């Protein structure tokens, strides 16, 4: 599942017109991501990512873009929180259906150095949302 998204990333590219654009880097491994988001009301209407990095960071970004498209900031916040729990090793989160394909990352929790890769796209999204409200 992770490999599939790594090999054929969804929503990779750039938006013509973005409401927020965030660049983020993981100092540990040099993974980079640029995330562009456009909003409609309170919801994320479209988003794209670009960048380079390991399978975890790229697949996580790819799945995230699929999962959050069309969702409200509140819904996104809830998913992000759950995903973070999953990454911190909270096994209960594995059963949360809202996480969808993200559950494939549960094995990453064992590797703290890789957790940051998995969360990179989400940190970028958080910044993008914050950029918008401010």
């Amino acid at each position, binding site marked *: 599942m992770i490999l599939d998204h790594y090999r054929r990333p969804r929503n990779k590219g750039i938006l013509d017109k973005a409401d927020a654009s965030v660049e983020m*880097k993981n*100092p540990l491994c040099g993974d980079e991501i640029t995330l562009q988001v456009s909003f409609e009301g309170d919801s994320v209407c479209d988003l794209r990512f670009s960048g380079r990095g390991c399978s975890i960071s790229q697949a996580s970004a790819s799945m995230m873009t699929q999962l959050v498209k069309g969702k409200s900031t509140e819904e996104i916040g809830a998913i992000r929180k759950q995903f973070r729990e999953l990454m911190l090793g909270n096994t209960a989160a594995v059963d949360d259906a809202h996480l969808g394909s993200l559950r494939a990352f549960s094995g990453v929790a*064992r*590797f*703290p*150095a*890789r957790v940051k890769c998995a969360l990179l796209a989400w940190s970028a999204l958080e910044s993008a949302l914050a950029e918008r409200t401010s």
Partner: protein
Amino acid sequence: MKLRRDSAFRPDLRVRADFPLLVNNPDLHYLDSAATSQKPKVVLDALRDFYETANANPHRGAYSLSVRATEYYHLARVRIAQFLGVRDSDCLIFTRGTTEGVNLVAGSWGEANVLRGDEIVVTAMDHHANFVPWQILAMKKGAKFRICELTPDGRIDLGHFSGLLNDRTKIVAFNHVSNALGTINPIAEIIRLVREKTDAITVCDGAQSAPHFPVSFDSLGVDFYAFSGHKMLGPMGIGGLIGKREMLEEMPPYQTGGDMIEFVYDDRTTWNVLPHKFEAGTPNAANAVGLAAAVEYLDRIGMDRVLSHERALMSAAQKRLAAIEGLRIYGPPASERSGVVSFTMTDVHPHDLATILDGEGVCIRAGHHCAQPLMRRLDVPATARASFYVYNDESDIDALVSGIMKAREIFGYVPA
């Protein structure tokens, strides 16, 4: 810290068997724990276990062994923070010991914030570790270095202290417990005065408090607290500096290098988050794990019991020593001291006393106890010092007293 005068205390701990060095030397009376403590087997086992099952460079690897090392190191930090009442464990920076902790604050906060004309206050009882770095900082910055005098019985003279504080005071440094006299300082009162009269930061040297009674950094009220693992049953070369988060975050780094950086560019560098920002280079994870085992051991005894055990020994020792003619004890009454007794004898130099006691298997310290400014005020070149910890019992006091009597004999004490 209020200490009960309850004479019903008994030195009831019987843990000598946990300490290999003491077991190997059954006739040894180790009364120099204020210098460094002996180590229980559990600490030595924890050290060895780390090296045999988890040894790797923490933070740097993407393989399981390194993950384990990182986790051990992290959990050690959390455990020690809990022991010292620090909820936010990222505010505990591992250092080599108290000396490095104080130097870190002086080199980071002090370098960045102290200006010409500012004032730095220390006390006349402070250990060189919490005295010299401030003196040097003051000289470098053109700040005033002010020393709070003591009462005749070796306590901080709060009147003088209060008089030293003003709106130019930038740093106030003091030990929690004096290693030379055993005096336990009234931290709450000190903090109240500092807050009332200054915006200064407070730096507490906890080298002699963390090992001996319950300490909660979060309720202590000081901005920084430094301690040494080797004095609290832990290995050498590990200790900590605890700071308030808002302070640590605004401070520049101290040492720089690997692990403490975020991005290194050709022309600038950005810093990692706490606690890493202050931990440059490969951390001493093994010894942190050893120290965690030490606080675990202390917690299993209970710090209240550690305290009452030492107080019981202290009051017994005080009675026996005070009864020796020509022996003079320094510092406040025993009931207000930590487990340290500093004394001199007519006609027997402290060094000679230590040498004779050594012949009897009794280890005490003789010298200035890294507190030369205090010695000058006491007007003695040196004192003899006995200090107690969990593994001591009445037999150590017996040996101490009979050794002193022997020394007196050798040096032919003649009542004045």
